[in-house]
């Protein structure tokens, strides 16, 4: 609700980012489909490292690395949207694996000052924030990906919705 100008421009940025991401995705899938060689090449060490780097979590959290792509999301709006688009089984799977490591995640992130997390730890923290978003749906709403008997969620505009963290 702070200056709608910034909200609008943020929206524009998000939209731009989205289309860029979509374009990149299309490009990637096109490559994959077009050339098995390219696919193989992507699997070679030199190509693989950046991808691997983008998914890596701090040592000890390898077991939940499989959630990074889907759930390491920087804003509440994106975490909320992802939760709403997920199936009950996906939410349950994420919750089941995240819950046991939650205390060690919180311990880990507190070895850094507030808001000063290195990249891999930041990713881990985003996963924990997604658990905060998902937990009520498993613990309270019987796996319903939406808040049951509630107002249309997208009509609530959160001033902090696009804030990172």
């Amino acid at each position, binding site marked *: 609700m702070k200056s709608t100008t910034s909200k609008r421009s943020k929206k524009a940025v998000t939209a731009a980012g989205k289309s860029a991401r979509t374009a990149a995705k299309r490009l990637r899938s096109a490559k994959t489909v077009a050339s098995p060689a390219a696919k193989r090449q992507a699997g070679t060490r030199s190509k693989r490292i950046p991808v691997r780097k983008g998914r890596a979590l701090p040592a000890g959290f390898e077991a939940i690395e499989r959630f990074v792509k889907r759930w390491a999301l920087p804003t509440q709006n994106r975490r909320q949207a992802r939760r709403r688009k997920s199936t009950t089984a996906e939410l349950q799977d994420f919750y089941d694996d995240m819950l046991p490591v939650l205390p060690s995640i*919180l311990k880990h992130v507190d070895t850094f000052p507030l808001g000063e997390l290195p990249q891999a730890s930041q990713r881990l923290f985003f996963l924990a924030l997604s658990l905060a978003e998902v937990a*009520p749906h498993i613990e309270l709403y019987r796996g319903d990906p939406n808040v049951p008997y509630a107002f249309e969620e997208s009509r609530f505009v959160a001033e902090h919705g696009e804030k990172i963290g």
Partner: protein
Amino acid sequence: MATATGELVRRHRWTQLYPELGQGPIPTEPYVSEEIYQREIELIFKKSWLRVARVEEVPEPGSYKVKRLHFANTAIIIVRAKDGVVRAFHNVCSHRGNTVVTETGDETFGHNKSAVLPCRFHGWVYGADGTLVSVPEEDRFYSCFERGHNGLTPVATDVWEGFVFINLDPRPLHTLAEFLGGYAGHFGGYPYAALTECYSYTTYLDCNWKIGHDSFSEAYHVTTIHAGSFPNVFSTGLADVQFFGPHRTCAVCLNLTQAPTKVAVVAGSVHRGSLVQKAAERRMLPPSINPSGRHDFAFELSTLFPNLLLHVAEGIWFTHQFWPIARNRTIWEGKYYVRAAQTNSQRWALEYAQVLQRNAWLEDTQTMENTQKALESGAKRYLNLQDEEILIRHNAHVLADRLAAAE
């Protein structure tokens, strides 16, 4: 001061305490009538002190917030001047009526380093105290034009506990202090400014402003409406209901019967951010709140007449505000304030608490448009209120009395 303690099975205790409110049903007409709506706007909204900002939103000289008030077809610039004083003006240029600050929505924020407000149309410049300080080509206006008489149109403004109020009446009947009366004493002294982390939501609702207001004015709905988000929470009844002229307050007491969920336990061990979490010892509540020290006290629920609900709890305060746009259209603003996180784990705990609170508000809001639709049918002429809905009854009486007094 009328407080009620030791209430056992006094089922009608509140109307017994306030017999002037009666026990009968209240009419549905004020929720659907265009005529009553127009009178509420003219006689109440345009004459009452209304909370439009927090001082933290205009922190420095030159900081401003422009808030559109649809019901009055105006927007108000709330601006801090170099003398530190926060003032308010209509956002209308004295030249040819353009908006001085270009608005980008219902709320527009900005800062001008020189603490002036320039109009983009022809470059007229106003000081943050409203004076017209500069007019390009001033000598080409005529002798009848006086710069000193053409400042921004002021709006009565005052501040209480960091809340900025305006009154659209050019000559308000009461000062803000007079208007607040005993309410100011009851809610003064709480450390509002210390809880700096604000989670703010807004939406448009297709309902009368009072339907939203009523929905948040009782705890009777907790067991049903919040069966999803707060299944372990049951209202143990209101306590300490008090009226201060048109304003009203009470304590909401909740029984937390079951153990919190696994994730709630982790969050609760890290930081206080949830209303349905057992409070730590009393640290910030003023002595006027929960005077008997009830252990099931959850939060104080009040209405600062006409449209602000202010709630305070240990470590949390929050507001709901309903801004009428039309008879059946309303802006809702919900703001939830907590102590800012000092650590990453506290930041996480706040995320959990706030997400759950958002979900509860989504549950609260769900009924509002449905109620409006149903009442529009005209099938019901009256609504039935039980004793725990005393705040709604009080509101209906205050509004009816105000409109009748203006006849």
